[in-house]
């Protein structure tokens, strides 16, 4: 599995990817999705494997990096580390920041490695299964993916569905890929090629975050002092090993489902850790199990989210949507054929994720104190710099100034979406799945001679439709149960 990585160039890429991912994870407001989108233009100078290794190492390390600020300044570096704040910061306030970060580092590494094992075993199986899929099955699968966003995504399920539908709508802008008819172009030539993924991602994540930061200038972070990260004690391991394993399983499973990956996984991992704990009353006051539950789950979601991304070409999270774009830009088409034709490439990705998990353990263990200092860079200096990189990165992909304006438009839109409780992640997933949804629907209707009912004669498609209905009904059932 590691053989394709035995090249000094790839190891250097992996090293810097992990380092960069950690820095992105530590900085509140940035994260692996924004970072991945910003770095995507730079990957054009690399070969496909190096490019994807860079993106995946940023993904793994960035997810862990969020825990450092969650523990030390009570602000999650990434949304996936929100649950870590609940117990990480109280424990740090008790003078045990080193112990809290030690547990976060160990559980993140175990969760991450566990999920890579799941990825290695399940991605090929899913890819084999995908050989049975025709256009109707892919359509049903994409619909299932979108409905899952409503049921297990963060926030209001209906708002998530609106955001997902909006994402698909954006994908229809430009020339219709089947008939070359212009749609929503309004005579603007640049729009006839459609709206690129990068301007939308950078706008929705980086620029909208810049606007959010402009509203938080009076915020003061209280940083807890950290002497050194401490490895968990025997007693800590005894208390948490079951939680770590359970959360790793939960995280990997949630990661496979198209949703907000690590964010949802960590919340479920945390609440399950509390439910199974012998000391649930300690949660929220600095429970070591709480940190383990949240951190193992969010890092386990990384490998899980790569399963559908590589096997089916359907992203399991916003960051894997960026990785998927990276694959497409570099001419690699994810799906079952990738497993048959380029096994070395895949093993390279699996190996890179494994090494990235080990590397961030080392960096986190020895360097958490240094990384925590990065948060001292003032926003008034950091964000104008991020703006410059965002603008140039967005411009560079197709050398179009229109892309930069689209990025700004989506930045403003993303800010208001978040302000009114709409998640931006479904927009990204919708945008990337849009062409698949429309293309497979139209091709299926050609196969079925326009008879919609024929979808119900395909067992796999029917199964996905039933699962979609369950996914749509799930939030309703959940809110009824909560009311009881």
């Amino acid at each position: 599995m590691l053989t394709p990585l035995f090249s000094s160039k790839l190891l250097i890429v992996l090293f810097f990817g992990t380092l960069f991912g950690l820095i992105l994870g530590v900085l509140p407001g940035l994260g692996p999705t924004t970072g991945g989108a910003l770095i995507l233009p730079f990957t054009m100078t690399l070969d496909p494997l190096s490019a994807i290794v860079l993106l995946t190492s940023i993904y793994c390390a960035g997810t862990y990096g969020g825990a450092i600020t969650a523990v030390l300044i009570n602000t999650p570096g990434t949304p996936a580390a929100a649950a870590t704040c609940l117990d990480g910061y109280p424990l740090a306030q008790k003078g045990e920041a080193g112990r809290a970060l030690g547990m976060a580092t160990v559980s993140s590494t175990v969760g991450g490695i566990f999920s890579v094992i799941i990825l290695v075993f399940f991605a090929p199986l899913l890819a084999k299964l995908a050989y049975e899929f025709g256009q109707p099955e892919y359509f049903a699968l994409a619909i299932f993916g979108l409905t899952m966003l409503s049921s297990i995504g963060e926030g209001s399920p209906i708002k998530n569905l609106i955001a997902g539908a909006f994402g698909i709508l954006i994908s229809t802008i430009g020339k219709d890929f089947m008939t070359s008819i212009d749609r929503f172009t309004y005579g603007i030539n640049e729009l006839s090629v459609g709206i690129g993924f990068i301007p939308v991602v950078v706008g929705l994540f980086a620029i909208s975050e810049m606007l959010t930061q402009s509203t938080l200038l009076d915020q003061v972070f209280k940083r807890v002092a950290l002497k050194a990260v401490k490895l968990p004690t025997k007693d800590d391991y005894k208390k948490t090993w079951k939680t770590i394993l359970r959360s790793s399983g939960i995280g990997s499973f949630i990661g496979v489902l198209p949703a907000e990956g690590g964010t949802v996984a960590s919340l479920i991992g945390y609440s399950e850790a509390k439910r199974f704990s012998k000391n649930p009353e300690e949660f929220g006051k600095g429970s070591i199990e709480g940190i383990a539950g949240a951190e193992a789950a969010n890092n386990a979601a990384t490998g899980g989210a790569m399963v559908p991304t590589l096997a089916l070409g359907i992203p399991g999270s916003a960051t894997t949507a960026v990785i998927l774009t990276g694959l497409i830009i570099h001419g690699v088409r994810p799906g079952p054929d990738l497993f048959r034709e380029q096994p070395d490439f895949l093993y390279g990705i699996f190996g890179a994720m494994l090494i990235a998990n080990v590397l961030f353990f080392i960096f986190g263990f020895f360097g958490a104190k240094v990384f925590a200092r990065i948060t001292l860079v003032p926003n008034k200096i950091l964000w104008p710099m991020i703006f410059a990189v965002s603008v140039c990165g967005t411009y560079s992909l197709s050398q179009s100034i229109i892309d930069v304006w689209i990025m700004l438009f989506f930045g403003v839109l993303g800010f208001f979406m978040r302000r009114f409780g709409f998640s931006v992640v479904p927009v990204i997933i919708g945008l990337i799945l849009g062409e698949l949804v429309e293309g497979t629907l139209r091709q299926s209707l050609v196969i079925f001679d326009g008879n919609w009912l024929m979808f119900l004669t395909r067992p796999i498609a029917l199964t996905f439709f039933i699962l979609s209905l369950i996914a749509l009904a799930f939030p309703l059932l959940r809110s009824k149960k909560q009311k009881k």
Partner: protein
Amino acid sequence: MNNVRNKKRANKSLPFFFKDEFKVSFIIVFISIILLISTFSFDIVPPILNRGIQPATFPKALLILIISLTLIIYYLSIKNPWKMGKKLPKTFFLTLLSFLIFVIISKALDFFLAISVLSIFVSYNWGERRIFYLLLVSIIFPILVFIFFETILGLRFPPGIITNLYYY
């Protein structure tokens, strides 16, 4: 909890057209209707070329779905009002204004001049007063970015009064 309750109560006391729920739903529905109307102007493909459905059918279905879901969230918000966000500070509007200035300068004068102007404008309005840091974000960093993209990625930036000095 009390804060959330107070905010909800405050939101409830407003006339319906001032509430966030109404404003947001209205804007979504309004824009969706305009887009829906524009789909009727899409070219219609003759049956021989038409694969499955007309090019306008899919966007139409999506827009109808968005309108329907928006009406549902508005209906639900009558029973369960949204939390009211904090009033946006002056710095937000200044940052927004800086985007507008960026668009104008990048179109009319120069792409990199626009980045520099935005950087210094944002940094200053966000509270930075130290000359070195203002120069760092507005001149030194954009130059480094320019050199990096130009030499490593081989990118050619759009012509402008400053960029032309480098190219010609």
